[in-house]
C-alpha cells in the first residue's frame, strides 16, 4: 500500500514540477498573432479578384493559414501554388478548376465611345485603376489594372473588354529548352507528362 501511495506521490510531484516549468514557459514565450499570414499574402498576386471565394487576397491568406487549400487562386496559377507549397512545406497540387482557370495576363479596356459614364466600373475596381467621373467617359490605367474581370459584369452597356497583353520585342523572352527526351525523337514520354502536371 505504501509503495503504491509513494509511486503516486512521486508521479504527482513530478507532474507538478513540470507543470510549473511549462506554465512559466507559456508566459515567458507567449506569441501574439500569426506572422505567416503576411508571408502568404506576399505570395498572392493581389488581383483582389475574389475568385477564391474570399473578398480579396489578404482574407484568402488568412484562410490558408487556417488550413484552406492553396490551389484556389487562378490568377496566380501554378507558380503561386508552387511558391505557397514551398513556403508551407506542403505538396503542390494542381489548380482547383472550380475557382476558375489560369488565363493569360489580361487588362480591361473601355470602348470609350460607348461608355455612358455611370461610374459602376469605378466602384467595382478593387485597385482604383479606372478613371473618370459621373457622366464622363472612363478609362483604364493599363499599368495598374490587375485583370480581375470585376468591372465587366457591372457595366450596363457592356463596353469593357478584357484584352490579352501581347508580346512585344521588349517583353519577349526565350523559351525553356525542351530538355533531353524531347530531342531524341521516338519517345512517348510518360514520365515527363506526369512531371508537367506535377
Amino acid at each position: 500500500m505504501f509503495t503504491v501511495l509513494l509511486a503516486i506521490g512521486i508521479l504527482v510531484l513530478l507532474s507538478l514540477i513540470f507543470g510549473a516549468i511549462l506554465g512559466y514557459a507559456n508566459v515567458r514565450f507567449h506569441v501574439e498573432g500569426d506572422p505567416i499570414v503576411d508571408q502568404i499574402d506576399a505570395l498572392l498576386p493581389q488581383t483582389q479578384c475574389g475568385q477564391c471565394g474570399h473578398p480579396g487576397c489578404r482574407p484568402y491568406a488568412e484562410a490558408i493559414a487556417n488550413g484552406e487549400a492553396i490551389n484556389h487562386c487562378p490568377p496566380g496559377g501554378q507558380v503561386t501554388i508552387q511558391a505557397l507549397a514551398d513556403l508551407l512545406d506542403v505538396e503542390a497540387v494542381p489548380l482547383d478548376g472550380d475557382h476558375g482557370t489560369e488565363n493569360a495576363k489580361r487588362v480591361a479596356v473601355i470602348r470609350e465611345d460607348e461608355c455612358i459614364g455611370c461610374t459602376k466600373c469605378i466602384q467595382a475596381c478593387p485597385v482604383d485603376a479606372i478613371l473618370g467621373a459621373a457622366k464622363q467617359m472612363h478609362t483604364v490605367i493599363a499599368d495598374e489594372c490587375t485583370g480581375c474581370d470585376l468591372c465587366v459584369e457591372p457595366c450596363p452597356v457592356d463596353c469593357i473588354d478584357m484584352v490579352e497583353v501581347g508580346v512585344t520585342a521588349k517583353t519577349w523572352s526565350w523559351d525553356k529548352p525542351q530538355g533531353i527526351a524531347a530531342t531524341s525523337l521516338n519517345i512517348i514520354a510518360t514520365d515527363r507528362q506526369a512531371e508537367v502536371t506535377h
Partner: protein
Amino acid sequence: MQVGKQQTANVFSFHGGIHPPENKAQSLQLPLGRPSLPNELILPLGQHIGQSSRPLVKVGDKVLKGETIAINNGFLSSFLHAPTSGTIAAIEERLIAHPSGLSDLCIILSPDGNETWTTLEPLNNWQDISKTDVLAYLSEMGIIGMGGAGFPTQVKLQGAHKNPLTHFIINAAECEPYITADDMLIREKTLELVLGIEILQHLVEADNIVIGIEDNKPTAIAALKSVLTERNSKIQIAVVPTKYPSGGEKQLIQLLTGKEVPSGQYPADIGVLCQNVGTCVAVHDAVTLGKPLISRFTTLTGDALKNPQNVEVLLGTPVAHLLEYADSEPKKLSRLIMGGPMMGYTLDSAVVPIVKTSNCILAASKKELPPPAPEQACIRCGMCEQACPASLLPQQLLWFSKSQEFEKAEHHNLFDCIECGACSYVCPSSIPLVQYYRHSKSSIREAREANVKSDLAKQRFEARKARQDAEAAEKEAKRLARQKATSDKATDKKKAAPAKPAPTAAAAPVTSDESKKLKVDIAIGKSKLKKLQKQLLEAQENEHVEEINSLQLQVTDQEKTIASLEEQLAQIPSAAPAAPVANTAKASPAPVSDELKKAKVDVALIGVKLKKLQKQLIETPDDQELKDKISAFETDLKAAQDTVSKLSENTQASTSTSTAAAEPKASISDELKKLKIDAAIAKAAVKKVEKALKKAEEINAPEIDAIRQQLKEAQQRADELEKALANPEATAPKAVPAQAKPATNLDADAIKKRKIDLAIAKAGVKKAEKNIQLLKEQGKDEAEINASEWPSKLKEAQDKLAALEKDQAAETSTPSVAKEASAPAATTNIDADAAKKRKIDLAIAKAGIKKAEKNIQLLKDQSKDESEIEASEWPKKLIEAQQKLAALEANESAPAATPTPASSPAEKTANSTADSEAKVEPEMDLATQIKKEKIAVALAKAQINKLNKRLENSPEDANSIRQEIGAAEKRLQSAETLLEKLIHSQTNMQENR
C-alpha cells in the same frame, strides 16, 4: 606617366575563357566594300536600349541625308537620322533584327539616289564650350555604343562623371570568331579613331587611356602604333592574348586594370569607362565633320558567301541586299546569324535591316555550323565551370534553371552571367546552357515585375478599403447625428432640408483628398522605412560595415520625411480653411460663404480640441493647466462663433441681394442649393453649440449663459433659412427670364437620366430572363420557377421598362420644342448634349443587339430548333434593336455635322494634370508623381483614341480634329517622357537602395 612615350600597359588575366576557331581570315581578304543603295531603307525606332525614338517625319515627307527623322523619347533613348536623301514611304511595323523574330515600328525610307546632304554643323569649338553641350550634341547625333548593347553614349559619359576616372578603355578586342569589323575600322580610320578618343578624353579626363586589342590583329596594332607615335600621344596600347571573351566589357576591364566591376554596378563606379572603337570613330565624325551616325562597318562572312568582306553600310539596309552584294549562295545558306557565332542571334528572314549595333552578318553553311547535337544529360563534368569567365557554377545553375528553383539560381549569382556562351561551347552533352539561363533570367525578371505590381495593387487596394471604411464610418456618424437631431427637434423641423453638408463638408473634399495623399505618402514612407530597417538589420548581422552607415543615414532620412509628412497631415484640418480662402480669390461668386465655412471649420476645430481637453479633465480633474487651456479654448470658440454668426448674417444678406439682383446667369437650382447648404450649416452650428452647451453644463463652466445665447441665435438663423428654403421661388422671382435655358438643360438631364434608367431596367429584365432561363435549363418545372422570385422580378422590370419608354416618348417631343425656343447661345451646348445622348442611345442599342445576338447564338448552341428560337422573344428583340439602331444612326449622322467645340472632359483633366505637373514640387513623392503621370498618359491616350474615332465619323472636320489630335499627342509624349524619367529615377533609387 610620361607624355609622348609609347607605352604598353600591364595585362592581367581572367578566369576561364575558351579558344574557338577564329575564322577571321575569310573576311579580311577583300578590301572594304561599299554596297550600292538598296531600294528601301528600314529604320527601326528602337535601335538602342530604352524607349523607342519618336518619329519627327510623316509619310510622304522628303528628307535629306543626315536629317533628323526621329528624336529621343526619354532618358535612355536616342536620335535617328536619315541615312540618305529620299522620301518617307511608310512608318509601319516591320520585322526587326531581334532574336524573337518579332516586328516593331520602323520608318521606311525610299532613297532618291541623289545622296543630298543636309547642312552639316560640326562642333569645331568642342574644346571651348561646356562639356554638357558637347554631350547634348552627341545625343543629337544619335550616337550609341556600337559594341552590342546600344547604350546611348552621352548617358554613359555622364555616368562616368560620378567618380574620377582612372582608366579610359577603348575596346578593340573583338574576341568573337568571324568578326573583323573593328579590325577593318582601325585599319581604315586609324586617325579618326585616335581623334575620336582624344575628344572623348577631353570629355571624361581619365588618368590612363588604354586601347585593349587582341594579339590576332597585328596590322591594326601596327597602324595604331604608327599614328600614336606620330601624334606623340599618351594613349597606350595593351595587346591582350586572344581568348574569348576578352572583348566583354567586364573581362577587358579585368584584363587591363586587374579590377573587377562589383556585381550590380557599372564600370564607372570603379573609375573605368569603356568605349567601343566604332563609337569613338562615330564621335569623331559627329564632332569634327558634323555627320550623324548613319552608317557603320559590318562584317559579311560565312561559307554561304562567295565574297566575304567588310562593308561600310548605311543603317537600315536590308540584310538581303548585303547578302546579294557579297554573292550569297542560297542553297548553302543554313543559318543566318546577326552578330558573332558565340553571342549573335539567328535571323528568320533576310528582310531585317542593319541597325546601329549590327557588327556582323554570318551566313553559315550547314557544314560550317552543323545543327546542334541532341541534348544529353548533364554529367557534372565541370568543363563549363573551367570555361566560365564569371567564375560561376554553370552546371548548378542548369539544375536550378531546369527545376525552376529560381531563388537558388539567384543565390548562385545567375545574374552575373554575361551569356557569353563559353559554357555551352565546351559542354560535352550539348546542353543549350545559355538558353536555360536566359529563360530563367527573364522568368525571374517577370516575377519581380509581377511582385512590384502586386505590391502596388495591394497598396491601392488597402488604400481603397481604408477610404471606404472611412466613408462608411462617416456616413454612419452622420446618420446617427441626424437621428439624434431629428429626435431632438421632432416637433416642428420636419420640413427641414435634408442635412446635406456638415459644417466641414465644404472643406472636406479638399482636406480628405490632401490627407489621403499624405496618408498614402506616409504609408509608402513607412514601408520604405521598414524595408530599410530590415536591410540595416541584415547588414548588421552580416557585418557589412560600409552598408550599415549608408543605410543608417537613409533610415534617419526616411524617418524625418515621415515625421514631416505626419505633421502635414496633422495640419491639414487647419490648412483646409486656407484653401477656401485661396479659392475666394478666383471664385468670387460666393466669397462670404467661403469665409463662413472657414470660420465654421475653426469653430469645429476648437470644439474638437475643447472636447479632447475636457475628456482629459474628466480623467484628471485637478489639473489646473488643463482648466486654463479649456477656458482659453472656450473663449476662442466664442470668438469664432461670433464671426460665424456675423458672417452668416452677411451671407443671408448677400444671398438675398443676389437673389434680388437675379443675374440672368444664376440659376434657381444654384440658389436653392446654396440656401440648403446654409440651412444645413446653420443647423449644424446649432447642434454644435448645443453640444458645447451640454459639455459646459457638465463641467459647470461660467460661459454657459453665453453659449445658450448663441444657441438661440443660431436656431433663429436656422429657422429663417429654412423658411427661405421652403419658398425659393418667392425669393427669386426675377430669375424666371433665365429659366428657359436651365429648363432645357434640366430636361436634357432628365432625359439622359431616364435613358440610363431605361438601359439599366433593360439590363435588369435581361438578367431576370437569363436567370429564368437558367432555372429552366436546370430542369426545374414551371411551378418551381414561378415560385422563385424571378418571374415577378421580370414582370416588375418589364413594367418599369415600359413606363420609362412611355415617358421617354413623351419627353422627346417636349425637349425639342424647348430646344428651339432656347436662346441661340445655348444651342451648341444643347447640341453637344444631344449628340452625347444619341451616342449613349446608340451604345445601348448596340449593346442590346449584341446581347440579343449572343442569346440567339446561345440558344442555337444549345441545339434548340428554330421554332423554339422563334418562339423566344430574342429574334423579335433583335429586330427591334436593329431598327432602333438604324434610326439612331440616321440621327447621329445629322448632328455630327455640328462639331462639339467644347473640349472633352478628358482633355480638360489632361490639361490640368499637365499643368499641375509643371509645378511639381521636388519633395513630392516619386510614386505619386508616377501615378499622376500614368493617369495623364492614360487620359491622353484615351482622348487620342476618341478623337481618332471622331475623325473617322466626321471626315469633314478632319483638320480641326487633327489639330486636336496633334495637341493631344504632344501632351501624351510629354507625359510619357516625364513618366519614363520618373520611373527611371525610381528604379535608380531602388537600385541604389
